């Protein structure tokens, strides 16, 4: 009796071990830290990632079938906002927020500028249900999908049966978002010793390490924390950031440190899109810091940059642009034969 159990268990483990093999859509350089996302409960497969990609580009997720995730997160701009007038922010943040680039999300521990979303799998619910955005419920979306010809087939391919439910929809969209790894910039080639910075980029890199990398930490260019980087509060929007979630005044005006990968193409900048170019951003860090109790420590001492320094810094920041990422076919509008 005991023997049979052992044999059966071993057999079971062997089957599980096969499932460990990850889809080809998640690769990252060996010198990067391990992702934070827990892949065990949502193992990547080609079929699920593809289904997620179809969902990401399908306006079926919105009430009037006009808006898809890609309407606000466009590949050409590293999945950030292409048309500012579209994004009315998320629910309680109507009109306030700028859609961030979707890059290397597997390394984030929370999402949204204020961390309102605690797991990537739950992210899609926010825009889907927002009356000013897609104005849908996940239950109704699942119903609509059941009545299409394509989705039952895609779910069958991905899950082995054609049932459509909230969990499956969310996990597939997540798989696609996880696949959005940007790691083919010039910076990456330099780190892997396959390219060299120009003299100007090298100088910019040194300035960056001195002034910026405590928050925009390499190699992901974010420390995954909330910080107050001294932006003056916009009086009409009155967006207090992280404090909205924690109700703790220590979090006043703190926002999630965004990645700077692909920063040159993902303008406008900051949670409210207040800056339209990088010179304005640097001017903020040198001249615009507003002091308050929650101002981040590294910014207590003024950042001094000459005009030349600024040029050098921007030259370095442009090495974070990844053309492979914004042209990758696996990320683009899915064309498929039914």
């Amino acid at each position, binding site marked *: 009796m005991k023997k*049979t*159990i052992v044999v*059966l268990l071993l*057999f*079971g483990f062997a*089957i599980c071990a*096969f499932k460990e093999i990850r889809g080809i859509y998640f690769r990252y350089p060996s010198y990067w830290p391990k992702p934070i996302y*827990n892949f065990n*409960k*949502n193992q990547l497969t080609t079929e699920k990632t593809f289904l997620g990609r179809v969902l990401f580009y399908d306006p079926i997720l919105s009430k009037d079938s006009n808006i898809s995730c890609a309407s606000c997160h466009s590949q050409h701009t590293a999945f950030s906002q292409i048309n500012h007038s579209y994004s009315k922010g*998320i*629910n*309680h*943040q109507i009109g306030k927020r700028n859609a961030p680039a979707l890059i290397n999300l597997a390394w984030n521990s929370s999402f949204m500028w204020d961390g*309102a*979303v*605690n*797991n*990537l*799998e*739950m992210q899609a*619910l*926010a825009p*889907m*249900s*927002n009356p000013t955005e897609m104005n849908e*419920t*996940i*239950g109704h979306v*699942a119903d609509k999908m059941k009545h299409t010809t394509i989705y039952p087939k895609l779910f069958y391919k991905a899950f*082995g049966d054609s049932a459509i*439910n*909230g*969990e*499956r929809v*969310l*996990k597939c969209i*997540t798989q696609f978002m996880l696949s959005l790894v940007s790691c083919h910039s010039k910076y990456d080639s330099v780190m892997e010793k396959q390219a060299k910075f120009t003299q100007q980029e090298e100088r910019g890199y040194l300035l960056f390490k001195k002034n910026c990398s405590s928050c925009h930490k390499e190699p992901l260019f974010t420390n995954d924390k909330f910080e107050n980087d001294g932006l003056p509060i916009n009086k009409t929007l009155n967006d207090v950031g992280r404090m909205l*979630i*924690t*109700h703790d005044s220590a979090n006043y005006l703190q926002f999630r440190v965004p990645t700077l990968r692909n920063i040159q193409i993902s303008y406008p900048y900051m949670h409210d899109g207040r800056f339209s170019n990088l010179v304005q951003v640097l001017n903020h860090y040198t001249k615009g810091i507003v002091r308050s109790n929650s101002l981040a420590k590294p910014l207590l001492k003024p950042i001094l940059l000459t005009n030349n320094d600024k040029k050098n810094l921007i030259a370095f920041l442009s090495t974070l642009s990844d053309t492979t990422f914004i042209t990758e076919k696996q990320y683009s509008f899915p064309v498929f034969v039914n």
Partner: protein
Amino acid sequence: MMRIVKMIFLIMLLWLIGSETVMAQKVLEFHPSYGKDLVYLADSSYQSNDEDSITITQFRFYISDIELWNDKNKTWEEHNFHLINANEYQTLRISLAIPDDIVYDKIKFKLGIDSLTNVSGAMGGDLDPMKGMYWTWQSGYINVKLEGNSPLCKTRNNAFEFHLGGYHTPFNCLKTVTLPIIKSDNIKLYIDLKKALSSINLKMTNQIMTPSKLAVDISEKIAKAFETRL
């Protein structure tokens, strides 16, 4: 092919386990009530016929981590999540695999969803966000939804709406309910909404849609409304 092999493996394993313990299905019933009245909402809303003139249109809540205790010892437990919905009769009865020889004099359970589950991403069954018990603009389960009308509420249609949840301190709304019970194949629990609502100042407090101090207080009041009627 792999699926069939896995099925066979599962069936054999289940059969092995099944052959060794005697499983007995016991029923735990929830009866939402208003004083003595039962509040079932499947066909229509509930209208109280006392001076409160309360209408209840929606009442649903999560129950998790059910345990049985005998004096100071835990004698049985399960770790499932159950969505109980006064609009859907079938959810008011849950079957529990309690072996016949288990003794107990108390039942203990959580009203709501624990913080670990709250940060664990998308889940299925009763936890599927399709069930409408998940906040969308800020991650987190809604532990309890109670909606209705009262003349005391100076809101549109005199409506009150309590969506109670939140898993972060200091606004953690998860409550533990402990009740004395007598061993039975059919355990009945009542939730007296009259008791809960009359302890809330509906004039002042009638809309709760986010984690907050008030949400914690009202969760406590709902937890206190659970009772057994012997």
